[in-house]
């Protein structure tokens, strides 16, 4: 007998012992899929989160009356709420309690050859003078600082060697920060004074064709090199190298990372963290790039949930829950990990310490991708629609992705 015969016999014997799949497997798959939707590997969620340290007074929304609204041409503008339940993508400002939809982008996978493409974002940013969203086609990446006065931008063809500081009131770049290591992702600190720039040697948004299919997937290798923590006022800051760990058993020599996996500062500004597709789902570093254990109040962070920590730091926006309602999410106690369920399919931004803006589906809940922005409240069943519904399926061109700024 040859060794390949034995391999064959062994594999067949092992396969024959395999018990059939339990009944209900399809439903299990569909349930898990719904739960995991927000965890899509390619989502660069962390980098879009921007927050502010000052806890804001929660405006009391006169909820209830607004729960059901006709879908045509209604503008809800009262006290602290500007909602446009008939607009998707929104044309006019959406904001609640100071948390503002600073803009949105339309993603598109642009083919560059028969087997390569680039995932590109076309941004639309709020012009505070007109209260309308206007196309800002120059930028491949935008991070909006708390307060909605400044945005940090990157030009097309990532990675790039300079970062623009855009004055949102004029739409002009006020200052450029030159960097030695090319940058492809940006994220503001909670107080807006620091900017974390993630450095790459290749465009992290490149896509490659999956063999024999019309799907585009991310590359299997990461070109990430480290990060800068820059002082926004002076434009100065150090670069920290973060080496990719490599597996000696792996002839391909790589560790697994999403091709884009950006860094961000923790809310207290003491650490830089990144999400990870592998357990425990994140890694923390000191400001020089050395790995450190998860800080106490940050260990329940989920990088794929944009809302992150509440302004007070006591609660963390968590993953999809789906127990109490068809679509709901967890809000997690930052210290104990205790979970409460709140309405909303995907938590996007905090409004004070007890309300959040989320994606949610309509009441009938037939299509999980038919979502609109809503305001949800911890401890309440009520949801207040803020935008119209997104059309198309996940990954379709033209589905807008929101960008929020804290007050």
């Amino acid at each position: 007998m040859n060794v390949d015969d034995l391999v064959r016999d062994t594999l067949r014997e092992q396969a024959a012992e395999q018990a059939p799949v339990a009944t209900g497997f399809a439903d299990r798959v569909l349930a898990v899929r719904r739960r995991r939707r927000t965890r899509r590997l390619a989502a660069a969620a962390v980098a879009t989160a921007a927050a502010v340290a000052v806890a804001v007074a929660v405006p009391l929304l006169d909820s209830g009356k607004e729960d059901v609204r006709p879908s045509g041409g209604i503008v809800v503008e009262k006290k602290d709420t500007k909602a446009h339940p008939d607009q998707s993508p929104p044309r006019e400002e959406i904001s609640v309690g100071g948390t503002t939809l600073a803009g949105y982008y339309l993603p598109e996978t642009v083919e560059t050859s028969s087997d390569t493409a680039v995932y590109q974002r076309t941004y639309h940013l709020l012009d505070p003078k007109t209260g309308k969203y206007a196309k800002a086609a120059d930028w491949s990446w935008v991070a909006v600082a708390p307060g909605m006065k400044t945005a940090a931008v990157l030009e097309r063809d990532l990675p790039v060697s300079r970062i623009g500081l855009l004055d949102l009131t004029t739409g002009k770049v006020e200052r450029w920060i030159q960097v030695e290591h090319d940058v492809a992702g940006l994220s503001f600190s909670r107080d807006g004074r620091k900017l974390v720039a993630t450095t790459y040697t290749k465009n992290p948004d490149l896509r490659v064709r999956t063999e024999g299919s019309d799907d585009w997937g991310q590359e299997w290798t990461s070109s990430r090199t480290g990060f800068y923590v820059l002082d926004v006022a002076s434009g100065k800051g150090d670069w920290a190298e973060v080496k990719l760990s490599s597996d000696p058993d792996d002839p391909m020599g790589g560790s697994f990372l999403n091709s884009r996996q950006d860094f961000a500062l923790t809310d207290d500004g003491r650490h830089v963290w990144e999400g990870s597709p592998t357990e425990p789902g994140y890694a923390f570093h000191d400001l020089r790039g050395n790995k450190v254990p998860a800080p106490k109040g940050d260990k329940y962070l989920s990088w794929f949930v944009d809302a992150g920590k509440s302004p007070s730091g006591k609660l963390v926006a968590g993953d999809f829950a789906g127990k109490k309602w068809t679509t709901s999410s967890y809000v997690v106690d930052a210290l104990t990990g205790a979970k409460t369920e709140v309405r909303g399919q995907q938590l996007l931004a905090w409004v004070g310490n007890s309300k959040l803006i989320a994606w949610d589906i309509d009441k009938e809940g037939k299509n999980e991708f038919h979502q609109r922005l809503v305001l949800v409240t911890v401890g309440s069943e009520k949801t207040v629609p803020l935008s119209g519904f997104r059309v198309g399926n996940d990954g379709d061109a033209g589905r807008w992705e929101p960008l929020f700024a804290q007050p």
Partner: protein
Amino acid sequence: MNAEGLESFRDFVDSRSSALLKTAVLLCGGDQHAGEDLLQNALIKAAGRWQRIDEPEAYVRRVLYRQQVSRWRLKWPRREVSVAEPPEADGAGADPAAATELRLVMRQALSRLTARQRTVLVLRYFEDLPEADVARLLGCSVGTVRSTTHRSLARLRQLAPELAALGSAEAERFGSPNYSPAEVRS
């Protein structure tokens, strides 16, 4: 997914999952839970574009193989699969017992290969696919399939000295595997 899509997805899962799970568990070196996870992830991926897939089975299998190869790149702790210790040969050396013992030894050795090595062996020897098909499925060159097969079999022999008495597989008889950098890295 609309109602019609949901129904055909359920039908597909009900009718094909048991067969797909066999492959998935083999790809995971006999780890039942890891195999279920692998299949579940592949089906979730398929569900996302269900109505655009022409051949669901081929699609899911391709995702299984590729996912398994990329999973190996994840820094997930490698789960050691416990396999019963082979019974001590009692000296009588009856053939059926010896063959069973060898298969147990082989099972254990297979579970200790890297996922990529195991995937190539499952495709070559369980699915009986020619090298060119394996290369297409994994998105690498035929040279890589050949050298990976060669190295995987060598590794099995290293892990299980009990296999020394076995004859060489055809894949082992190549003069030297292709170690050009591009081949090794792809």
